[in-house]
């Protein structure tokens, strides 16, 4: 999962925009009363450097790929406007759909496992029933600091049948029952790497949301004679809802963008991991092996829109439940 300019999850806060705008008016009002007009250009001067670069690396690429997706390089006549032809072609492109359904499957299996583990770990550390909980917190989080490349290389070696741990295990079992690079298992092998990288990160997001539950809630629950399980279902899980929605959204984005892990593992299993293993790898190989930039831009736009829609639906469902 690569996100160079990654979307950062806000712990325990489902709608950052919400208070952003809430907080704003107060400030605005004060400024208007006192400084007024004089400050117009000054505020803009502080913001301008960011805006210029932002236009260049965020807005312009989006606009440019929209443009690209509507054109095509043709043998006769060169670069020509083709309307939505690229999209129509993509809609019936078996390689695209192969990768697409693979990441959907990945998403449906890996994300619940990872978030479930993270949730259990966060509840365990928060329960104050662990010895050395500080150690667990940092140990489980540590893989997050490891670059994806190093994580995949490491796991790739461990999976390997030459000097990996898996080879050691197979020797010990006297069989070749474990085959991380086989066609059936490769997705599980990738899922394991992604889980390893991000379980601690999600755990910390949940943990930080648990830490801010007011103590009086627990005291009230104790007075009412609620047991630990009841405290979890009645107090802790509801308090975690915002954090879970955020973590889910970012995991969905991460799954749809799956690239680093399969692309690096491809060196070890070139026949099993295809060039269109995930949509992102497909877009990458379209542009860098095939020079089919217009098609690559179309894949990027389609995946961007699908991701945005799903993220929006999850966010909507998450907050609707909250109101109930």
């Amino acid at each position, binding site marked *: 999962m*690569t996100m160079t300019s990654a979307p950062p999850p806000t712990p325990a*806060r489902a709608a950052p925009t919400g208070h952003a705008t809430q907080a704003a008016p107060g400030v605005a009002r004060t400024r208007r009363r006192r400084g007024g007009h004089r400050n117009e250009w000054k505020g803009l001067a502080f913001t301008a450097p960011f805006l210029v670069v932002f236009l260049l690396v965020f807005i312009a690429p989006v606009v440019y790929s929209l443009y690209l997706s509507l054109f095509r390089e043709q043998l006769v006549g060169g670069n020509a406007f083709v309307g939505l032809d690229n999209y129509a072609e993509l809609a019936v492109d078996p390689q695209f759909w192969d990768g697409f359904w693979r990441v959907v499957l990945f998403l449906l299996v890996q994300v619940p496992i990872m978030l479930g583990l993270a949730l259990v*770990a966060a509840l365990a550390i928060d329960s104050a029933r662990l010895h050395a909980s500080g150690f667990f917190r940092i140990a489980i989080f540590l893989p997050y600091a*490891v*670059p994806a490349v190093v994580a995949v290389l490491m796991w790739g070696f461990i999976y390997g049948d030459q000097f990996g741990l898996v080879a050691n295990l197979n020797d010990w079992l006297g069989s070749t029952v474990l085959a991380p690079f086989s066609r059936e298992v490769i997705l599980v092998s990738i899922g394991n790497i992604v889980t*390893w990288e991000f379980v601690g990160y999600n755990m910390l997001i949940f943990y930080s949301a648990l830490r801010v539950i007011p103590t009086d809630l627990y005291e009230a629950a104790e007075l009412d004679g609620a047991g630990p399980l009841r405290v979890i279902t009645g107090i802790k899980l509801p308090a975690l809802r*915002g954090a879970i929605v955020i973590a889910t959204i970012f995991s969905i984005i991460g799954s749809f963008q799956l690239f680093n892990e399969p692309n690096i593992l491809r060196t070890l299993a070139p026949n099993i991991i295809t060039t269109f293993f995930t949509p992102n790898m497909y877009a990458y190989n379209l542009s860098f092996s095939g020079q089919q930039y217009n098609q690559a831009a179309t894949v990027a736009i389609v995946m961007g829109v699908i991701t945005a829609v799903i993220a929006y639906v999850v966010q909507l469902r998450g907050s609707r439940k909250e109101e109930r």
Partner: protein
Amino acid sequence: MTTLTEAMTTADASGRSRTSGRRRRGASSLKPRKSVAFTALMALLAIYALVPLVWLVINSTKTQAGLFSSFGLWFDDDFVFFQNVYETLTYRDGIFVRWLGNTLLYVVVGAGGATLLATLAGYGLAKFRFFGRRAIFAVVLGAIAVPGTALAVPTFLMFSQMGLTNTPWAIIIPSLISPFGLYLIWVYAVDSVPTEILEAARMDGAGEFRTFFTITIRLLAPGIVTVLLFTVVATWNNYFLPLIMLSDPTWYPLTVGLNQWSAQASGVAAQPIYNLVITGSLLTIIPIVVAFLGLQRFWQSGLSAGSVKQ
């Protein structure tokens, strides 16, 4: 996902001033007993997290032949860690050192620049009123949800038309934007930079930028450091962007270079250097792990303070 970075930052920014009264120590009022069985269960997860790292450390002490002949989770008879480090640093005229230098360049200019831009803009948005401010804020927040990889290919195409690919700028310029960093500083500045102080500085005739660099920056320091820590991780670990932007190995960062070393083990003219890939990987993660452990107190307190402002 680069992002803890920012998760933590948020935490930090929003918390601080408002938290204190409400925080609790675990569920201490209930005084639950410590449980050995529970601890053992969590130990399994910790082992899962740590085993690959332990494997990396152990295997960085082996020769290439030793990697094949010895058990993965224990040492070989020959202990050649320092020789491996020496070979890693000198292989192909010290290309690894060059990659390390590149990575440092991208981190210092990219992450440093991202933090500076986010701080200036976050402060500008929080403390000044100007036309289009809200629109700017809405667009930047929307950008948080745009996956970086979706933009990578179009950015490459654009940069190649501008002649920027295969130069350090292709890595540095996209690293300069951290929408979340901006959001964090904005939230932080609203609370921690009192407008009265700014007014007083203006009365004394100090210019806005002088006020910013002498007063504001100090008040914002905790937020700035958190943003910096996480943008550093993001740039240090960056892989996809340099992979597509660079074809000249002399500009590679460590991540892309290591993968190239690993890839040379297969193919027609295969030249495996597994021991150098392993030692190089270890050298790559040491600085970032040390930074996280060393600054632990800082980012953990930031994290818990942070998520308060619901």
